[in-house]
């Protein structure tokens, strides 16, 4: 944790990027921290507010074309998120938020400039990717398989500065082969909305990064594990 003993989580621009239950990721992180007696505060930072630079975890979600382009412009102009990332903040970027972390993305038929915080570029696919997505996560992260629901028209190309978050075993992800990207403490994924509901281990990875801990006390994950089992099997059945 950066300076104080309280873990601070920022949800970036819920007024612009909050289409698919994105609030869930903030709620889940806060709950999993609180259950371990880690003091936690959450902040919803609107697009007309200054972006704090000293929070520990930043979350950014999915959205429509117009708000996505607007969010990217404002984050570039604000500069606060870049400073936070340079200072070592952890990030979970989802769907439209994932795309805008790259160098460029397509919105409303035009190429838009992204934040350049991940070495990725996104363009349009020929079909829309909608449905269950599943993948084996980069072994270096030491996490069980990714499960999510994807809903996007973009395709994302990874540069040498990032690694795929996962190898796709069902669904499309970036391009049918890989899904998401990560570098340092930034995770990007097309598993949209409340991705952490199905992937509590990713939530715990973000918490560990934020507080600099190698491990966390285990929680009773009976229900998330049942959900994971069901969804991983459902993706196989498709």
């Amino acid at each position, binding site marked *: 944790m950066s300076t104080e003993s309280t873990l601070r989580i920022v949800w970036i621009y819920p*007024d*612009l990027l*909050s*289409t*698919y*239950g*994105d*609030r*869930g990721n903030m*709620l*889940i992180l806060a*709950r999993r921290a609180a259950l371990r007696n880690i003091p936690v505060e959450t902040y919803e930072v*609107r*697009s*007309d507010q200054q972006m704090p630079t000293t929070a520990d975890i930043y979350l950014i979600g*999915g*959205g*429509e*074309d*117009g*708000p*996505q382009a*607007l969010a990217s412009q404002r984050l570039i102009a604000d500069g606060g998120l870049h400073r936070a990332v340079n200072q070592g903040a952890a990030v979970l970027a989802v*769907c*439209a938020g994932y795309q805008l972390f790259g160098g460029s993305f397509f*919105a409303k038929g035009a190429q838009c400039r992204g934040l350049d915080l991940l070495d990725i570029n996104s363009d*349009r696919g020929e079909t*829309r990717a*909608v*449905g269950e997505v599943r993948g084996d996560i980069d072994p270096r992260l030491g996490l069980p398989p990714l499960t999510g*629901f994807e*809903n*996007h*028209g*973009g395709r994302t190309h990874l540069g040498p500065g990032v690694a795929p978050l996962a190898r796709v075993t069902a669904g499309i992800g970036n391009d049918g082969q890989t899904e998401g990207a990560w570098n340092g403490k930034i995770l990007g994924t097309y598993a*949209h*909305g*409340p991705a952490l*509901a*199905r992937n509590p281990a990713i939530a715990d990875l973000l918490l560990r990064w934020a507080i600099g801990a190698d491990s966390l006390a285990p929680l009773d994950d009976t*229900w*998330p594990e*049942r*959900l994971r089992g*069901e969804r991983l099997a459902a993706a196989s059945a498709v």
Partner: protein
Amino acid sequence: MAVFPPRPRHVMRPLDVVSVSGTLVAVTDGKMPMRAKVASSVSRTAAALSRAAGRGDGSVIGGWIGLKIDPDLLRNLASGRAIALVSGTNGKTTTTRFTAAALGVLGPVATNSFGANMPTGHTSALARAGATPFAVLEVDEHYLARVIDETTPRVVALLNLSRDQLDRAKEVAMMAQMWRTALAAHPDMHVVANADDPMVVWSAVNAAHVVWFSAGQRWMDDSWVCPECGSPINRAQGDWWCTGCSLRRPVAQWRVEEDGVVDPKGDWHLVKLQLPGHVNVGNAATALAVAAEFGVRPIEAVPRLASVASVAGRYAQVDRDGRNIRLLLAKNPASWLEAFDMAEVAPTLLSINARDPDGFDTSWLYDVDFSPLRGRQVFITGDRAYDLAVRLEVNSVAFRHVHTFDEAVQATPPGRLEVIANYTAFQDIRAELDRVN
């Protein structure tokens, strides 16, 4: 994110119509072209066959066959009738029922009261209607432009626009734009629109004849950004305004006040309903506003609203084993908030599916705050009960997972059991209760 065409929510199976030929009946309506007469007649017959075969109420399949034979059938059937259309994301089935009840003051009213709200359903409803001069049609929001073109309604009521089945539906802003274009093409049409929803106001604000109603808006997460200029929208004490342009909440001629409705003259009418919740008083206000466009006075219409006891099984109450079970449909975040408002503090069963008509994505569960259920005895069931389990845990709501509806009934003490379910889960429970309407 790309725009993509909406898929129909009901899948038509041609298998359902095999035995139609040779059963045409005589048509007596002299105004329709021959092709339309045949199509209308076949449509009615197919609907009857479909009902007889136990394949639903036939309101979709009949219209589907009719439109195959005559693509202009809906236009022909609508011709010469005074029609009101009711559209929006939520409340349209109930508001349609209320409006049909209110217009009943004038005489018989045709309506698609089973919620078959696409052109096939409209065709079927009007084909059954004979010479009935009035019709009130619920219209799926995606189809509103087309149905306006084909039916030339006297009045269209616009209730609200919010996220609904986002893995298939058009984005909210796109829908508002479609409505706006449709209204601009029909300047003679009267519009009754919700002043509390910025997306609805933007779609209707340039229409020549608009009457605004205010029924309150509990769900706001789809209208924080101005559809006109992209600036943030501010809200305070029921008012709202764009911080970047002139779009703002218009003055409402009809509004809800306590358990009644204030009309444009300022007269307050007590609205006693069998249907629960503040939201249904709002739906009643909308119906009264639409009926007024047909010359029906609130004082005549209000008593008729009280006759509506359930709508396509929604709000229906069933007694079983000493339990009074009430069924509430909640199909998207806005309607869940309304359901929590309607439900009594009593044992509650939640059921979630994610089948084709529901949308396959359950992410919306995190757009709903389930904390009003804390302290109640909560049961969960349905295909996607595990999604619900994780959501409730995050919301610190204690629950018990049951595998059947009956298990929940047996675990509940005698008295009220509230059931809140999304679309196909609701149908499953209705079927289990063996209750058609």
